[in-house]
């Protein structure tokens, strides 16, 4: 399994680099207001940028899912790996683990920086204690859901309709979160969506001729 994960990471290392770059950009945006005057105004302005970048990043994970599956199909990687002592389920699990690691590469530094900033610059108003957990769990699940849609779209990329459908679904998902905001109800919806997506991907991946 470790070999398969290493192979996936090495083949898609560009997404990890992108995650690190975006993570650095987001951290610098979060830190900028601290060193500037008119803190609150800047904070609000920065928030808009963060939302924009988050949306870009989420579409990035959709692209990662598409990229992983499309590359596999195009280069017949699974067809080759299936002639070795590897099952298709393990190839898929390794792929999903890699996707999860890429998402965590982006999110974990944000969580750490946010916790440190909140400790150092606690806001004058009381903040709900599960706020950070809910927001970041929501971001993680959204990114993962988009990644799952990407995996499905990439595997059925022989026609443009599933790919565009996947892209449309990602837009709907992101819009839903932007309108409703993060919270427990969104987390539950996302978890259900992810479970359904994973079952569908597993079925697609293990039943399609390689």
């Amino acid at each position: 399994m470790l070999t398969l994960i290493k192979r996936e990471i090495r083949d898609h290392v560009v997404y990890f680099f992108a995650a690190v770059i975006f993570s650095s950009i987001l951290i610098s945006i979060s830190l900028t207001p601290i060193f500037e005057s008119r803190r609150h105004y800047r904070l609000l302005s920065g928030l808009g940028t963060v939302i924009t970048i988050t949306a870009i990043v989420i579409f990035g994970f959709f692209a990662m899912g598409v990229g992983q599956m499309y590359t596999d199909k195009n280069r017949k990687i699974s067809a080759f790996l299936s002639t070795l002592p590897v099952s298709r389920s393990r190839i898929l699990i390794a792929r999903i683990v890699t996707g999860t690691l890429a998402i965590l590469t982006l999110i974990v530094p944000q969580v750490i920086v946010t916790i440190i900033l909140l400790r150092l610059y606690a806001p004058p108003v009381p903040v709900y204690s599960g706020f950070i957990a809910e927001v970041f769990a929501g971001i993680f699940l959204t990114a993962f859901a988009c990644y799952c849609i990407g995996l499905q779209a990439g595997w059925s990329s022989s026609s443009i309709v599933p790919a565009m459908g996947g892209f449309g679904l990602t837009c709907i998902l992101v819009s839903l979160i932007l309108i409703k905001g993060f919270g427990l109800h969104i987390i539950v919806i996302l978890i259900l969506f992810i479970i359904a997506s994973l079952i569908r991907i597993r079925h697609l991946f293990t039943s399609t001729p390689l």
Partner: protein
Amino acid sequence: MDENVIKVENLVKYFDGRCVLDGINFDVPQGCIYGLLGRNGAGKTTIIRILLGLEPATRGETSLLGRKSTRLPAKIRGQIGCVAEGHNLIQNYKVSRLIKLCKDLSRQWNGESFDHLMETFRLPRDRRVRDLSMGMRAQLNLALAMAIDPELLILDDPTLGLDTVARRQFLELAIDIIQQQGRTILFCSHILSDVERIAERIGILAAGKLVVDCSLEELKTRVKKLRIIFPESPPDDLYLTEIINRQIQGREMAITVANWNRQKQAILETFKPSSCTEVPMSLEDIFIECTRPDSEPIEAA
């Protein structure tokens, strides 16, 4: 474990409503080298893909090393070496990286044998797979398949696209390896001379059916081509069974018949032919006769 390493039972496969395999049955016992022949598009690769679990069957069952193809566990996969048609190696990888990947994923790796093959084939490790010639890719694929000391070796048109020299070199090395280690081998090809050199048992696919399934020697003795000249025009029906092919030209009739025996000879003599001579047949001749659109399957003797 069942002594049949490969089992194919009533295999049926449809592609977009078109029947490609129509009730294929054959077994390959342990230690046998089975040559599966057929014209382009006859379904040889489809059988192999179904056997390896890469393609689902429409109906029927296949198993490798005693396990169903649809549920081959990693342990069993680790005992199967495969050289696929077109050598579907990961093209953008460097040879060294591909070797490492295969080595890390394999359950056993005979490094000594692999290095020996790499040296014999003079394969560069620092080039990308896509930069290798077709012959080099075939050799790399064979070396990788052999490195796991497989119990079963599946070779799907391994010499496809190779020039004559590379093909000869590939086959000689394959024969060496086969003779040294006595493995079960399924060898698919439409190059008959290759199969004739290697295979002990032959299967011929035509129009989705396995029209021949017997040993090479048996095939050569069982299938006869006769040139019969009649005093007048040939009869419409010779009342002979298992005529694979029949051609009439004037007073002359050429028949290819399976399981030729004294009984059939006696029936033929009742028509009082002027002469009846046997035409020697090579495997290629037998193959051409068996794969004609109007040919009949050869039943067991």
